[in-house]
């Protein structure tokens, strides 16, 4: 059993410490390919021992940013330094950085053992030392039995672990992982996420992972950078990203969210109230960003924060009525799509706590959706 963290144990959060020296400094970096701007003036610090995720849709520039860290691309403008050393003009093979590819890029002509030993051997290290290190790596990824096999003789999950072992063998300061779990099926991917975290913690290596899978980023990362169109939209811990998105884009990109557009009727002590439809109560949530009274804003609330009921819950701050359009039964939870005024569809997730539940809502039922005044965020347009 893992020990319960004591109340005064310090949480790993070097980004909150103004004295902490970041391992990676990205300062005003821009990358252009011809007319196309892949990375647009990015500033970012990543700290030692972090598990940092670059998250975004394909084409957002996350892979380009990672390839610049590896040295495969050079920034058009700006500066990247790793461990206080400017990386300009430093070739990929001279950086204390390794990279794990989505395709794994295992050398097909070499066995698992030789793949892991590849970098060490080329450095002309001592034979016994290489052997010891390779054994250590094989043990770390639990592949001792497969050492003599060629890459085509092992499964996809095992190949992924070989690639990880190979990239860690030379103990890099920084390991870049490009969609490392992209080629695995869902079940294996989930197991491997925890394995990856475990290995990251054991080796203490700084990991930067690129992924388009928000669940994966949330699971493994200590901090997540959400990217869009070459810019970083928000950098925060997974919980903050999920609960405190700073923009409609981030709220929408991470997880499921209901977005309701309206006009701000009042702002008061960090709370903003939104008029959004004729015949509906105004809705109140936490004010975020620069809102102005009378201006347009978007209300964001997660489906699981909503409660569904037949009677009007008069004691709740926010309540909305509508008609059930769709019901999705997922086993552990049920999703209700409720159509309200103006065709706005609001999703509500209810956990099925008891096994024999009376699911008394059905299609076309008139229902109320309600949530507390802290459940949602009011975001500027």
């Amino acid at each position, binding site marked *: 059993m893992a020990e319960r963290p004591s109340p005064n144990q310090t949480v790993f959060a070097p980004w909150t410490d103004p004295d902490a020296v970041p391992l990676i400094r990205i300062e005003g970096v821009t990358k252009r390919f011809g007319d196309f701007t892949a990375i647009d003036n990015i500033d970012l610090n990543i700290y030692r021992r972090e598990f940092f995720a670059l998250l975004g849709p394909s084409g957002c520039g996350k892979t380009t940013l990672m390839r610049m860290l590896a040295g*495969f691309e050079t920034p058009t403008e700006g500066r990247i330094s790793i461990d206080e050393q400017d990386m300009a003009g430093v*070739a990929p093979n001279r950086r204390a950085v390794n*990279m794990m590819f989505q395709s794994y*890029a295992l*050398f097909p*002509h070499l066995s698992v053992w030789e793949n892991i030993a*590849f970098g060490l051997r*080329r450095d002309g290290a001592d034979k016994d030392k290489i052997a010891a290190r390779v054994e250590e790596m094989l043990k770390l990824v639990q592949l001792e039995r497969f050492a003599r096999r060629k890459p085509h003789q092992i499964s996809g999950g095992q190949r992924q672990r070989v690639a990880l072992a190979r*990239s860690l063998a030379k103990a890099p300061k920084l390991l870049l992982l490009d969609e490392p779990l992209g080629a695995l099926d869902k079940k294996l991917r989930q197991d491997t996420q925890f394995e990856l975290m475990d290995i990251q913690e054991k080796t203490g290596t700084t990991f930067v992972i690129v992924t388009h899978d928000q669940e994966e980023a949330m699971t493994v990362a200590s901090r997540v950078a959400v990217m869009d169109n070459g810019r970083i939209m928000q950098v925060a811990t997974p919980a903050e990203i999920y609960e405190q998105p700073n923009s409609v884009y981030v709220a929408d990109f991470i997880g499921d969210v209901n977005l309701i557009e309206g006009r701000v009727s009042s702002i008061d002590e960090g709370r903003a109230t939104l008029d959004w439809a004729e015949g509906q109560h105004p809705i109140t949530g936490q004010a975020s960003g620069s809102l102005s009274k009378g201006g347009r804003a978007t209300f964001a609330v997660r489906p699981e924060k909503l409660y569904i009921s037949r009677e009007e819950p008069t004691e709740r701050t926010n309540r909305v009525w509508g008609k059930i359009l769709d019901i999705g039964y997922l086993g552990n939870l049920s999703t209700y799509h409720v159509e309200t005024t103006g065709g706005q569809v609001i999703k509500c997730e209810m956990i099925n706590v008891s096994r024999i539940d009376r699911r008394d809502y059905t299609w076309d039922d008139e229902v109320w959706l309600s949530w507390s005044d802290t459940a949602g965020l009011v975001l500027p347009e």
Partner: protein
Amino acid sequence: MFPRPIQDASPRAQLLYKIALPVSLIIWLLPMIAIVATAGRSLSDLNYGNYWGVPTEWAFIENFSSVFGSSSIGNYLLNSVIITIPSIIGALFLSTLAGAGLALYKFRGRFVILALFIAGNFVPFQILMIPVRQLTLDLGIYDTYWGVILFQIAFQTGFCTFFMRNFIADLPFELVEAARAEGVSEWKILIHVIVPLVRPALAALAVLQFTFIWNDFFWPLILIQSDELRPITLGLTTLKGQYISSFNLLAAGSLIAALPPVMMFFAMQRHFIAGLTLGASKG
């Protein structure tokens, strides 16, 4: 499925196929059959005009022993080996380097260089005959092994580079990037990643080059004068005889000369086929 299996064709078509196949094979092999038959005839048969009929006496052993006895064919074969092997090694070495350079690095003008390598293959080398001879004279390598080797390498490297570039460009580039991320230098990547992976291509190319260079008559003819340096292709002409053409001996000598490329092909057949179809069956 294409082509349609012959078993699916009508009985008439099958019959036609069964007749046409051996006939076309015989036509195809006619020059070969003629040479083998001539190699087994006596000179008197040839003088009487008996080219295709049954020989009055089988003279295989006499012909072959007189080829070995009356000419320095052993020496010619050795010269062919001395010229062919370094030429292949040189061409493969240079073309692997050039091919890797053109396939792996993005630099200005790389397409122009590749185009030059390809275009060079279309220059008829007959028009280079006089300048090359003059050049070897000026370099002091006229009538030496090195003169022929150097120009075989020079003329074969264009095609080989084209061939190797395409193979290397077909390799997943991430393998190179992975090796770079491992901290490995470019030379070591070439030796430990690229070369092992293009080995089938190298084997295929080695067989092709062996055939080209071994069978080449033109450059040795231009660049070699002394009898001691002649490769087998040139050496065969000495079998012609001074006053009469002993075609039976020439045919026997040709068979001997043709053997090494055939043997080379069978020895490397497995790699050769693998090399030609490499990349065609990814998956």
